[in-house]
């Protein structure tokens, strides 16, 4: 799967929690979930659960700690699905 495909798959996961579709369309690895996309922290947990379901992986709380931006989320997914 290409880098772009991975980003688009993550975009699909976070879509239900983002009100501003323009911001969603412009995300890249530096995009921060809370600060840039205005995702509230309770929904951040939902996103992490959705990522676990979609990729059939388990993200420990210590790994979740830094999952505040798109790039880190993609890195964690990559490391768990190799």
């Amino acid at each position, binding site marked *: 799967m290409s880098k772009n495909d991975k980003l688009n798959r993550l975009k699909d996961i976070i879509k239900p929690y983002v009100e501003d579709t323009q911001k969603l369309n412009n995300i890249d690895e530096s995009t921060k979930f809370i600060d840039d996309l205005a995702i509230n922290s309770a929904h951040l947990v939902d996103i992490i659960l959705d990522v676990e379901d979609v990729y059939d992986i388990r993200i420990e709380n210590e790994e979740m*700690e830094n999952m505040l931006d798109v790039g880190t989320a993609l890195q964690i997914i990559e490391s768990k699905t190799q």
Partner: protein
Amino acid sequence: MIFIGNDVIDLSFQDQLFRQFKNSRLNQKIFSAQELAIIVKEDNLTLLRRWTMKEAGYKAYQRLYELQPKFNPASIHTEIRDLYSGFATIGDHRFKLKTEQNDDLIYTYIDNHQYPQITLGYRSREDLIKKLSDYFSARTVYISKDSLNIPSILIDNKSKPISLTSHGSFQLAMFPLY
């Protein structure tokens, strides 16, 4: 030393939040093992109150130690003392908290005992700047965030910490009076 941290939940979203917090997988990511044993006996509103306690405590802790933003709510342990007060423990720091709750919202903030602190409701950034200008009779008011995303206000060139929280129709700012 004064600690600043606040968090609000708009209870018009309570049904949606109750559904979210009923998910045991979600709870395992939010609550410590000790809390998980306690929350089974608690009502839904108390779970939401604990969430605001974690958020308010985290904001004060991040500011105190100038930490990079992190997201690990289960590492913050909450204790409820009575209807209005409780504690959030993060690392070796235990913050005393106050909670105000009514039919519309749950609002929790760090209890600084004798240090007076103010909460202002606002509609937009411009509205907050205007309210702060009026409150302090100030000529210039700026709101900024540092590289750690921690907000502060500059009132006539004097810097003050400020904590901002928003959910649904509520946007609340808290800052020390002096």
